[in-house]
């Protein structure tokens, strides 16, 4: 029952980060090596979550429970199921990439930069493994702090505005969640998330709690119309910040829908599912078109992130319409598709931001018009970039296809028009991604600077190659991921479809 593996995964990077701060910016190289070693160690440790995972049960595994604030029966209670576990591994995986990617690029306060990412890694793992609502909330809010600093200290010209907007937006969203968590505690006498799943709530209570949660999670995902902080944050954040933001922090919102909204307020989720679906479709279609007209590469990818995350919320909330008594496959496909989409988007968006980062490091411009014909000077790099662009556009054989396809299959069961609208993203997505590829990578060299670009070095090559393998492997054989989450998702589906009234 008492397994301290998750604690280790949380606290090793946090204390490691403190150690790196202590090493200081003067010993930058030691700091780099120490950080990367810690992140690799954490990744290896996190793999044993996968290998020792029992995928036949929806129950929480690797549990650890100790009294924390006995005044309110708050426990330091950790544990993962098939929904949280893959996200934790995604976190540990992405952190290594980010640290390695920042190796040479970050010259101002390198130790602090590394430390911020390490601490954030620990805090985000805490979010995904907390089984106590207040512990969850503490990790959830605390993870904003390193991100605030990363954007504000190492960001672009308009970083102050972006950093504060990011912080306030997400802070505002989550305080309502806090109020509803306290409300449920006063009603049920427990802050344990699993107890909240079984707490019976009236229609009105569910409606209020649903919207409170929605404020918190929709801002994080982000959903239309509360997405406006994301393009600002992404554009201003340093490459590593964008990667973590897109690959992991957005998933915290999606995870919230899985862990809180569906099981705690099933009836309200059913009642308001159409509104959420419509917002998701607006995100998918409208934001797709917005992405089309962007001149800034990072902004384009940021909008494409919003559009892709629309699939997650669509897959989650389409289950209520897709479910037919006796035939749960449609609903299940949608939910699993949402999960797969989250993981896959973690890889692809990370890769896309790293691609832009590689270019930015060389010419210090994110404008599409600066580039043109990059393939001539950077052939290896262009190979990767095109692969990731294809994955972003949802090409079969890449991970981008699997999740979207599953969600669309689920949506067909719900309403054919939802599916048609969602599927249109395959066209719009291809349009904005490939058009960007065409303007940046292909054609003749338009800018003399591009001619002198050096192709990727070994470090960059390594990072991109690892991501390329992940994207293709998941596209060709997603079964291992679907397998671990299957039972948990089925259980979640049951919870979502069981009325609490």
């Amino acid at each position, binding site marked *: 029952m008492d397994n301290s593996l998750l604690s280790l995964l949380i606290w090793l990077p946090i204390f490691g980060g403190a150690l790196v701060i202590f090493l200081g910016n003067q010993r930058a190289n030691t700091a780099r090596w120490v950080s990367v070693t810690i992140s690799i160690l954490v990744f290896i440790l996190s793999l044993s979550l996968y290998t020792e995972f029992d995928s036949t049960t929806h129950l929480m595994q690797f549990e650890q429970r100790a009294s924390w*604030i006995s005044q309110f029966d708050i426990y330091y209670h950790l544990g993962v199921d098939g929904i949280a576990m893959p996200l934790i591994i995604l976190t540990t995986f992405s952190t290594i990439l980010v640290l390695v990617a920042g190796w040479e690029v970050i010259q101002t306060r390198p130790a602090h930069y590394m430390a911020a990412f390490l601490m954030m890694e620990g805090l985000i793992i805490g979010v995904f493994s907390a089984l106590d609502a207040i512990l969850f909330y503490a990790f959830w809010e605390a993870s904003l702090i390193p991100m605030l600093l990363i954007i*504000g*200290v190492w960001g672009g010209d308009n970083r102050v505005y972006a950093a504060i907007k990011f912080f306030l937006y997400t802070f505002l969203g989550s305080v309502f969640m806090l*109020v509803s968590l*306290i409300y449920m505690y006063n009603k049920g006498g427990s802050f344990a998330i699993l107890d909240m799943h079984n707490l019976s709530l009236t229609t009105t209570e569910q409606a209020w709690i649903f919207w409170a949660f929605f404020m918190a999670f929709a801002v994080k995902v982000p959903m239309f119309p509360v997405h406006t902080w994301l393009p600002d944050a992404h554009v201003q954040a340093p490459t590593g910040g964008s990667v973590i933001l897109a690959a992991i922090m957005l998933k915290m919102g999606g995870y919230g829908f899985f862990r809180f909204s569906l099981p705690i307020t099933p009836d309200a989720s059913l009642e308001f599912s159409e509104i959420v679906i419509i917002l998701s479709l607006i995100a998918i279609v409208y934001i797709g078109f917005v992405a089309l007209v962007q001149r800034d590469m990072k902004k384009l990818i940021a909008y494409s992130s919003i559009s892709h995350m629309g699939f997650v919320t669509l897959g989650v909330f389409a289950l209520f319409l897709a479910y037919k008594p006796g035939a749960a496959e449609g609903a299940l496909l949608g939910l699993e598709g949402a999960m797969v989409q989250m993981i896959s988007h973690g890889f692809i968006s990370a890769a896309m931001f790293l691609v832009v980062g590689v270019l930015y490091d060389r010419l210090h411009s994110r404008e599409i018009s600066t580039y043109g014909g990059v393939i001539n000077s950077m052939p290896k790099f262009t190979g990767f970039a095109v692969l990731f662009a294809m994955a972003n556009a949802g090409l079969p054989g890449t991970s981008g296809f699997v999740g979207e396809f599953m969600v669309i299959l689920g949506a067909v069961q719900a309403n054919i028009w939802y599916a048609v609208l969602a599927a249109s993203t395959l066209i719009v997505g291809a349009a904005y991604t490939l058009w960007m590829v065409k303007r940046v990578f292909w054609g003749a060299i338009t800018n003399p600077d591009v001619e002198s670009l050096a192709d990727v070095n070994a470090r960059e090559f390594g990072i991109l190659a690892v991501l390329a393998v992940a994207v293709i492997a998941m596209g060709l054989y997603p079964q291992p991921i679907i397998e671990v989450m299957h039972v948990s998702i089925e259980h979640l589906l049951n919870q979502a479809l069981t009325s609490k009234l």
Partner: protein
Amino acid sequence: MNNINTFDTTTLWSATPEIFLLSAIVVVLLLDLFLTKSFKQTTYYLTQASLFIAGALAFNLINEPQTIIFGGSFILDNMASVFKVFMVGSAMVAMVYTRHYLTQHALFRGEYFILVMLSVLGMMVMVSGYSLLTLYLGLEILSLSLYTLIAIARERAGAVEAALKYFVLGAIASGLLLYGMSMIYGISGSLNINEIASFASSANLASRETLILNFGLVFLVIGIAFKLGAVPFHMWVPDVYQGAPTSVTLFLSTVPKIAAVAMLVRILVDGLGAMHAYWSDLFMILAVLSIALGSVVALMQTNIKRMLAYSTISHVGFIMLGFVTGVVSGYGAAVFYILVYILMSLAAFGMIILLNKKGFEADQISDFRGLSKHSPWFALMMLVTMLSMAGVPPFIGFYSKFFILQQVISAGFVTVAVVAVVFAVISAYYYLQIIKSMYFEESDQEISIVAPMDMQLILSINAVLILVVGLFPDFWMKLSLSLF
């Protein structure tokens, strides 16, 4: 209870901290007269030692059985002892910071420390006051020392203005309080809190009596709100905070708040607890207004002392919300909040003083520019303090807000809780301004820290506690609850 009316010297044991401190003040005052310039530091050390011993004596009395002495006008209970320990402790920390400020700005005088001890004595009398008269006397000892402390920088126009403003408004507040007290006395026939309590809770009150009690109650609430600095009786707070020398602001914004809360508990909870339904409505209005105004007006400040003044107003609002609930756990939440607030406020003003140099007050937000580069450690400490004030976990400021919100929601005021958290988010903006200055901006001049090591050490411990107590808040929550 036979010791209420007879004077028994053994009962003096319960008042040892006050008796000791008073004697120490007299001794130090006389001694200070004979110290030559080169030995002026002695006064500081004697003050610290006196405070420490007074605190130890108070600590020694924790868990003594409740005793009421001096004809029912003085009470010794756990709340009094714990509050005294906290007051003395924070006063000692404040003195460590103060010494640096006074040395830098050539304000170092023996009287300063005497006045501080005197005000601590006044506050001790307040937290142990069990009759309206004792409470009022304690309050006046406190207030008169504070007026003088502010004016100690007599060549600064701002300080004199602040002292005068505080004096005039403080006198009005005292007057209102006294007026309310006289009404309560007039109708209940007693100054003693427990006799007032039994009068107010007796079932057969004539409507005329209730009316007069209520009338007095309103004045008492206004007087207390004045002292706490709750909206709309907050006008003195920003001016006094800004005008007073920073070391006085530091003291003013921390220790007396405990005493004010203690007075509130003695009068309104212990004495007029039966009238809770009447005063809780008033408190609700004061609390919500304070949270709102404190959060919004602080947004526009460029002077960090003034900004923190408005932030104090909004914290006071949260504390008052705890009393609105009318249950023991709600009062416990308020006490927890005040202790947390003092920890944070000490660190915040301590940081301002830390940056002080000869001729440099560091009281603008822009003075923190680029601090993260020149002193990453203290920038981190200020970051922790500011985020804690904003209520971001895992820092202690989150748990104090959490505790209050939990009580408010449990009392059925969900809407109020939502309003409070929305304003908490708004207030996060101005705390972020300081983080922005420290981390995101560069300074055009070098920031050097000239504060002595003892101050740097205490300040670091102070700020680290904000995190550590935040990770393990259980003990402090239980302690706060055990006081009622």
